[in-house]
């Protein structure tokens, strides 16, 4: 099966990073039903396009119950509001309280869906490329850890399967706790053994050889990216102002009032729709990245064997 293309790949990683960071921050900070609904709609639209219908629905299978749970649980903790819907013993359930819970639930789900979407656009190597040139060990440690985790999980399956297949040793079948200790000890020894060879492989290729490291950047920040970042910054500032105004005017209790003019939400709608629109237009006519020579190397290193 062919892998899905990375969405927003024609932009430098800083652009989607700023876009998703802005969307998530505004969603988290603005507890407002319209903003939460817009954010959730935008996050779902992006997820459907970038991750596919199946993956999005698989996520919603637990996210929607979570939303419902938060929505229904809120009246139990906060019996506020003026529109009485029903009485559960000593507790009164008000429409406003349910609406507050639904908004909080929508905020939580929207943030999760945004982060899921962001992880498809900001793959680990793109994120690490955002790290500064001087951050030498961090990308490498993250890179090693990224390999280690799936490798250990795979090996854990192999170890368990090997033990399960040896039914002839059934009398010696360990308890669950013993098996956990046995498997983790084996995996640790195995990984430590590998790490000896890996550290040799690193040193054989000049790690700690005394040169100042340079870095290979698969993505380059171009004028188009800089313009997009500036425009995005302006949009985010406008959205923040609108969200501030919307949240200041809005009241859940005792009665939901203060929605304000519709155009106050327009910049936010644009922001939340932007990832989907950008991803949809990504395929056609976006300029391709062409490698160009970069920065100069420190004297004495780099101009090595030819």
């Amino acid at each position, binding site marked *: *099966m062919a892998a899905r293309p990375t969405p927003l790949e024609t932009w430098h990683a800083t652009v989607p990073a700023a876009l998703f960071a802005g969307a998530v921050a505004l969603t988290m900070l603005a507890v407002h039903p319209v903003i939460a609904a817009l954010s959730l709609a935008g996050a779902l639209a992006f997820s459907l396009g970038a991750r596919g219908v199946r993956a999005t629905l698989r996520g919603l299978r637990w996210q929607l119950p979570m939303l419902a749970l938060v929505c229904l649980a809120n009246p139990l903790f906060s019996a506020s509001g003026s529109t009485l819907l029903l009485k559960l013993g000593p507790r009164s359930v008000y429409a406003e309280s349910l609406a507050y819970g639904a908004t909080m639930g929508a905020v939580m789900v929207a943030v999760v869906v945004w982060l899921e979407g962001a992880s498809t656009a900001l793959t*680990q*190597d793109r994120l690490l490329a955002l790290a500064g040139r001087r951050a030498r060990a961090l990308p*490498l440690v993250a*890179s*090693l850890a*990224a*390999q280690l985790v*799936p*490798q250990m999980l795979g*090996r854990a399956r*192999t*170890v368990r*399967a*090997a033990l*399960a*297949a*040896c*039914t*002839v*040793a*059934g*009398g*010696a079948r360990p308890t669950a706790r013993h098996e956990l200790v*046995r498997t983790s000890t*084996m995996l640790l*020894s*195995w990984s430590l*053994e*590998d790490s000896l*060879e*890996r550290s*040799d*492989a*690193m*040193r*054989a*290729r*000049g*790690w*700690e*050889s*005394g*040169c*100042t*490291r*340079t*870095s*290979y950047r*698969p993505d380059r920040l171009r004028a188009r990216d800089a313009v997009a970042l500036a425009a995005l910054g302006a949009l985010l500032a406008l959205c923040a102002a609108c969200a501030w105004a919307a949240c200041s005017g809005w009241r859940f209790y005792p009665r939901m009032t203060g929605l304000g003019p519709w155009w106050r939400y327009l910049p936010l709608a644009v922001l939340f729709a932007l990832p989907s629109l950008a991803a949809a237009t990504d395929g056609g006519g976006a300029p391709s990245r062409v*490698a*160009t*020579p970069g*920065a*100069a*190397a420190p004297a004495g*290193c*780099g101009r*090595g*064997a030819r």
Partner: protein
Amino acid sequence: MSALELCDVTFSYAAASGTRTAPVLRNVSLEVPEGAFALLVGATGSGKSTLLRLAKPEIAPAGELVGAVRVLGRDARGMVPRDSARAVGYVFQNPDAQVVCDTVWHEMAFGLENLGVPEGEMRRRVAETCDYLGIEPWFRARTAELSGGQRQVLSLAAALAMRPRVLLLDEPTSMLDPLAEKNFLSLLFRANRELGITVVVATHAPEAMTDVATCAFELRDGEVRAASLEELSRPVPLAVPGGRSGEAPRAGAPLVWVGNVWHRYARDGRWVLRGLDLKVGEGEVRALLGSNGCGKSTLLDVVAGVSRPQRGRVRNAAAAGQALLPQAPKALLACETVREELSEWAPAGGYGPTEVDAALEGLGLAGAADRHPYDLSGGQQQLLALEKLLLVRPRLLLLDEPTKGLDRAARERVACRVARARSDGATVLLATHDREFVRAVADSVSLMFDGSLAVTEPAGPFFASSWLS
């Protein structure tokens, strides 16, 4: 000028107690001319890796070195890591352990970044190397998604991107299947002939490389001598006393019966087993041959009951008395010492210290009973894991690539042990690429293709009518 030159080199490892161990290399002298494709042949533990590492000071073993090791005319001990990394590339044996970064592009650039190569120059070298080795289609892939063969090609590429003049490779193809091995060797051959890089390959299986090699050296008992490429290319069958019966397998009731089995790992994945039928008679040694990814290991898992097929039936009369040797013996080695390892299943197997001592003696590990299993060689680890299984006397023994990465002596010992298990009444089902091993031990052979068995025949007729050697 010689690319690699050893003059009267004697090397002993440093012992933990400060005492000196017996020399691994004794008065070794050899000379590899520039542009050569040299083979360094010898059994596991003969000192091949030690010799190669002495030419790479940043990974040279600790110990006492007498004599001179010169690389491109310079004393290796006098080379700083930076110069050594530039001039000498090194490819290790294990495809899993030597990849450092999680993406192909980062792995390619890793060495160049370490040497501070300017970004423009780095882009050129990475691009040229990828073009040359045909890596571009998977340049943006994650290294965890690559096959063993691709990982090894990536390690070669990452070394070549640094434009070394000498390339040292330590058993680079021993963990690969035959097809991946040929692909790797063809790339190595091109690098040698077209780019003029001197290649030195340490190997215990030189047969596949003698066509491309220009010279060979054999290491035995710490001493080196020039070897004849013609002699090395001659296939020698494995010597296994009491091996294959030569007769058609006994037509008893099948111990394992698999009928119309379909299996895949994910709902939207491809079918790995497609309507597969298999019968293995009691006391039979059955070999499964087939290319990588044809489903051999999956079939073993299905027979063992570890994987449940989506369709079809599996009947295994030895389901309660079976044992499986996985591809990596480390998946079975769980204890701190060799002796504890062999004793782990003693209560279930109903054996005691006497049997463990006898097994240690048989393995030639009586002197290493208190060592950690990881301190043994790959072949010894495999034999230890196999012995651990055989001590509990399984009725059905499932072996997944039991000779992968092993040298000739270890393969012969594994074959002898399998033959002995057979004569003790065990039924054996083994998956392998090693045709020589199959010739030596199997009663019958099944060729797997496209998720099912293309042909099943007694070993004699199978090899007589096989197109492949």
